[in-house]
């Protein structure tokens, strides 16, 4: 059962059920959210209240529910419902009345039961208030807080209406009604007066000493009082009348016998424009004498928006304009701004729009909130016009309106997808800041994936598109857009989702390898980086195999093979790798065959000579054998691996290692075996590496003429080198000799060299 309804500050309907359920519904009745505040009881009463944030001026709607067990449950913000319990109310029995005083600091309940009045602060200890009201009463039947939460009105069973501050420490006003009935409804007009409903409507101004002072207003019931920022709206079945304290600027002008300068200015303009008499001049002069023309103009400008009738607005504005003719320093800014505000106010007050806001309310809400309210009412066109008129920023204005318009369009199920998409695109275009994805998301939740696809096509941000394509199960589009974006994170996200559509990884890889090149590379990277254990490596190898990436698979096997401990296992794995080529890659197959052969050879060598050759390359093995003077073995292997005995590699290997092992006889024998394909300079060099000048010199005569200088240098025969250089007239070489000389011990040689150099330069 519904126990009450009310509005939130963003104009959603709150519906409170006896079960404790609270529903938030849009202006059109659509359920937006719901939550339950009571577990094991039922709701019997409720209060909805707004808390104003002192810094931003925005309002937050909250509510307090009174349960049948006399517990008070607080929800401070109905859009972010957190259920909080007030401390228990002392004593037992039903409450007579209660109300909420909420500021952004704390939230307080005032509750009355018979004689007692309790103050219950959220998170505090309940207090029994002891203020002597100075009147007789048995119980307080009604409590009503002013809009600003500063003042509280209490209605006693003896017909008194008492006004206190919100702490209930001070009595501000006393009123005695003619009846002892409880008032049906009480509301505050600003903090200045109270409207109370008994048999008739009574207007009770504050600040009078007469406790019976009131104005009676005749009303045909039923009627409801709605307290607003600066007045009370009285709604009956046939009328909607707003009561407010006449704003001061208006009073200044129109109050009977007003002596304010703005009143004079107004009179002046009436005299000039309507009565066409000279009094106008008198008024102006009197104002100017007081030096108050600017004040008068300003007050007229301030007064205008408080008028509801355009006719009167115009009259007051005209007065201010009239004043400006006499003001040498007039500044139009405030006038122009006010005219704009009034135009907007009049536009939204139009019966077809139906937002009869007062000027103060408009100012308090801010134009941005007013735009929100127009959007809620689907007055998109007016909202856009106002945005443009007020020069609002795109975020606050156009984007918000267009997006909401599009969201609304999407929910119009009677219009065709194509048509809606085209409409939205034509209106929204490429307006920056518009999220087509957001609109598409709404389309999806409205069950219109066809429309969503069309809309998503207009979205520029891939990161927004892709998750929605996934949601509506469009793998091709999702992958395509993700790849276009180049954002690999996004591509991976799609791919892992897409992968689940396949029974096994290899089908999946087969699929993407055909269609999506980049995606395929990425998945390979993923498997590559994640193949840490053997199982994963095998899986990865399978994929490589299926995708014909044989070379990479071979590499992967080789890497594993190299880590194996036994030669047997290694051979086995190299063989496995080799077989992958299926005799197609002859060169690589041969390389692997050679490796297997090498391992076998090394095994034999190890067996025969007890030396480890494990892990050595072919040349390293040969070098080692030569150094071990196992020349026959080396020769055998050379033949086996088809290394020509006249190849440069073989000669280098042999010369280097013979010299290294100081096998000088063998070296000499070798040098004479046939003509060296590498010349004889290396013989000299390798001998010198072993620091054997004697041996080096043996080969020097055979060194080709061009290389002799270098050999001499290497052999440290600097004097000979110098002679050779001089002979060849090579200054550079002479310099090299000088550079190689030790300046302290070879002074003579240096001098000689310098002399030669001088000679050569002079030539």
């Amino acid at each position, binding site marked *: 059962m519904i126990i009450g309804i009310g509005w939130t500050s963003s104009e959603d309907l709150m519906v409170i059920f006896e079960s404790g359920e609270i529903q938030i519904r849009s202006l059109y009745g659509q359920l937006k959210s719901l939550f339950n505040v009571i577990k094991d009881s039922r709701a019997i009463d409720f209060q909805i209240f707004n808390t104003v944030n002192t810094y931003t001026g925005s309002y937050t709607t909250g509510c307090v529910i009174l349960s049948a067990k006399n517990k008070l449950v607080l929800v401070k913000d109905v859009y972010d419902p957190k259920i909080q319990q007030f401390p228990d109310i002392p004593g037992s029995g039903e409450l007579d009345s209660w109300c909420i005083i909420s500021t952004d600091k704390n939230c307080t309940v005032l509750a009355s039961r018979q004689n007692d009045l309790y103050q219950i602060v959220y998170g505090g200890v309940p207090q029994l208030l002891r203020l002597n009201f100075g009147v007789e009463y048995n119980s307080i039947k009604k409590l009503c807080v002013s809009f600003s939460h500063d003042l509280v009105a209490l209605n006693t069973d003896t017909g008194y209406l008492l006004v206190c501050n919100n702490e209930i420490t001070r009595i501000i006003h006393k009123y005695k009604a003619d009846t002892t009935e409880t008032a049906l409804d009480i509301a505050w007009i600003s903090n200045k007066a109270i409207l109370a409903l008994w048999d008739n409507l009574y207007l009770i101004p504050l600040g009078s000493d007469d406790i019976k002072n009131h104005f009676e207003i005749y009303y045909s019931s039923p009627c409801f009082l709605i307290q607003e920022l600066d007045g009370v709206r009285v709604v009956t079945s046939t009328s909607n009348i707003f009561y407010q304290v006449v704003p001061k600027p208006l009073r200044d002008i129109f109050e009977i016998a007003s002596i304010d300068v703005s009143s004079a200015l107004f009179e002046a303009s009436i005299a000039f424009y309507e009565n066409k008499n000279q009094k106008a001049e008198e008024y102006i002069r009197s104002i100017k004498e007081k030096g108050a023309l600017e004040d008068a103009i300003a007050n007229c400008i301030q007064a205008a928006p408080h008028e509801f009738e355009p006719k009167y607005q115009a009259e007051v504005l005209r007065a201010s304009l009239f004043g400006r003719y006499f003001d040498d320093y007039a500044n139009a800014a405030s006038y122009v701004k006010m005219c704009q505000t009034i135009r907007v106010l009049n536009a939204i007050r139009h019966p077809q729009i139906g937002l009869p806001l007062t000027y103060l309310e408009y100012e308090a809400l801010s134009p941005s909130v007013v735009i929100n309210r127009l959007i809620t009412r689907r007055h998109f066109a007016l909202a856009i016009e106002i945005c443009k008129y007020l020069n609002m920023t795109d975020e606050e204005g156009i984007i918000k309106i267009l997006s909401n318009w599009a969201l609304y369009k999407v929910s119009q199920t009677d219009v065709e997808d194509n048509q809606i998409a085209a409409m939205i695109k034509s209106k929204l275009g490429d307006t920056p800041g518009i999220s087509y994805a957001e609109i598409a998301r709404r389309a999806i939740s409205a069950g219109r994936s066809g429309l969503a696809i069309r809309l998503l096509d207009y979205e520029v941000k891939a990161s927004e598109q892709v998750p929605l394509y996934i949601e509506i199960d469009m793998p091709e589009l999702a992958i395509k857009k993700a790849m276009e974006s180049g954002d690999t994170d996004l591509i991976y996200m799609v791919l892992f989702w897409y992968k689940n559509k396949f029974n096994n990884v290899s089908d999946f890889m087969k699929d993407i390898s055909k269609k999506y090149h980049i995606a395929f590379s990425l998945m390979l990277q993923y498997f590559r980086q994640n193949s840490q254990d053997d199982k994963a490596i095998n899986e990865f190898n399978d994929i490589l195999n299926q995708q014909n990436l044989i070379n990479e698979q071979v590499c992967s096997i*080789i890497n594993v093979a190299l880590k194996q401990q036994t030669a047997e296992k290694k051979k086995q794995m190299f063989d496995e790798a080799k077989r992958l080529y299926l005799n197609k890659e002859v060169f690589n197959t041969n390389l692997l065959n050679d490796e297997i052969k090498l391992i076998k050879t090394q095994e034999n060598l190890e067996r025969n000579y007890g030396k480890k050759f494990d892990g050595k390359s072919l040349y390293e093995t040969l070098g080692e054998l030569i150094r071990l003077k196992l020349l026959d073995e080396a020769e055998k292997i050379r033949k086996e*691996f088809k290394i020509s005995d006249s190849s440069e*590699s073989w000669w280098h290997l042999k010369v280097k290692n013979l010299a290294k092992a100081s096998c000088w006889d063998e070296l000499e024998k070798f040098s004479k075996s046939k003509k060296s394909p590498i010349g004889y300079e290396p013989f000299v060099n390798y001998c010198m590496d072993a620091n054997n000048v004697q041996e080096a010199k043996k080969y020097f005569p055979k060194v080709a003429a061009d290389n002799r200088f270098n050999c001499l240098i290497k052999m440290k025969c600097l004097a000979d080198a110098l002679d050779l250089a001089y002979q060849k007239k090579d200054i550079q070489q002479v310099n090299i000799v000088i550079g190689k000389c030790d300046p302290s011990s070879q002074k003579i040689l240096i001098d000689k060299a310098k002399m030669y150099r001088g000679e050569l330069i002079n030539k």
Partner: protein
Amino acid sequence: MTTTSSHLSSDRVNLLDLKEWLRREFLSFFEDCPGKKLIAWDKQLTQPLGLIADYRVLKERGVDKMMDLRELRDTRILKKKDLSDISHIFFIVKPKLELMSLIAHNVLSVEKELKNEIKEFHILFVPRMTHLCEKKLTDLGVYGSFKKNLKEIFLDLIPLDNDLLSMENPQLYKDLFLQNDPTYLYNIAKSLMTIQSLYGIIPNIYGKGKYSRMIADQILRMRREMGHNQETQITPKIDNLILIDRNIDLITPMMIQLTYEGLIDENFGIKYTQLEIPQEKIKKPNQDDKLNVVEMKKSIVILNSSDSLFAEIRDRNFNAINPVLSRTAKELQQTNEEKNRLQSVSQLRMFVEKTLKTYQVKKTSLENHMTIAEIIKELTMSDEFFEKLLTQNDLLAGLGGEKPNSYIINSMSRGEDIYTVMRLICLHCAVNNGFKTSLLETYKREIIRAYGIKYFELLNNMEKSNILHQQGVKNFDIVCKKMNLLVDKVNEETPNDISYVFSGYAPLSIRFCQYLTRPNWKAYGDLFGLIPGEFFEEVQYLPNMRKRRNSNTSLNSAQSGQSMDQKMTLVFFIGGCTFAEISALRYLSSINDNPTEFMIATTCLINGKSFIQSLKEGF
């Protein structure tokens, strides 16, 4: 770890802004969490993040302990005793799945041991969080432990010097050029967007190569996605962006760099501007010569432009640094003598306050560089080095032909360092526009015979990423001639051409940039076509107000002679660049009438060895 940032600041495009931005981002993660913190790092990130914020700064923000995440495994997992007083545990990692498992183990252990204490866990992903990592964390059952504390910091392109940015990512070449993993393209594009958000939209984009093309497309797309209302309002400070795929010029990285900084990198490797010299290489001070009283206090030297001496010699040909070193030595000596002449106490105090500090800094710097130069000199004086250069020049001159080069073959049988051999083979291949099958096979067979089957994969990878390839159209000699790559008369001391960096070879990549930034570059259009890789240009639309003064959109506007001031060009190497190339660009910037100044960005700083090494498995 360096704390000063003076080396980053510059008048035109101040990279200090980028550093400050990164620093603020990074530190805000700690500032948002009150209480003591423990950091478990991915070791690979300590250096790049160290360039952004040092330990002292972290400590000020409550970082109490730092640990290496990769060590927090098995029994060394986070325990109760590690965590007394600690309220936040930060894992700072690259988005790698194996690290997620490590994190999960630690989180679960902590949660099990400390049931009642509340510790907050955070992961900071560098450069970005990925769905895969989130999924992995969920699978491992720890996703919930992090609540909303999964954050990312887009630290990818790190400012190393006032004109140099690097991602310092040696793995990138392999992942991108070999495995075709486009992740990095996205990251590169993102970092360029960051650059644009700080220094304005770059009006002109030029590029060569397929990955450059893809990055340019990404940038244009990201800009579209962003919508112009979110765009930076900064007047463009960079006029041109040149994107270069490393693969368009595979000759240059194979060449031995002959600039000072290049040689340092060739011999020791420079990482994050840090040089670590192995102690044994440092010679005992030579007492005889006064100038050579060299004693290195530490073996780590910071190499950036805040060291004024280094700034002066880094880009010089190694043969031309001596004059600078001895001049500096003389200056220092003068200062020293001045000190001895001082008489009054006040003069002395002035000296101590004003001169002494810089004197000390300069002295240390001179000592360091003399030591380094001496070590390098010894290496460059050797016969092997000379022979290598000779072979390199022979190959470059096209003398390699279709036969295996005998120096290369001999080096292999002699068991020379494999990367020296590989570099020469690659050079041979590049100069020759590829190998005939038989030649390629000979080289490959020899490598396997000399160095073993373990290089099978490296060879395979080099082929797959096109560093070694079959012969295509032979045109290098034309390119060489038309782009004037081989220059005979090189002035190493006062260079008049970029070819000084290799003593006679002008790096192709830089020649390309040089010609492209000339006002009449369109005349070279056909020539650019001879270099591998697609050439393209894109113009980015700029709202009128943001146009740079005197900068009428594209390069050729300078033709009209309106603009007298130098433009600014950012060259981005995708796949790495060498110090020699940087030096060549700096040389161009320094020429007064050059139409543009250059800034350099690269995915990694490379030399021939590190470049080839990066293709190895498990690198």
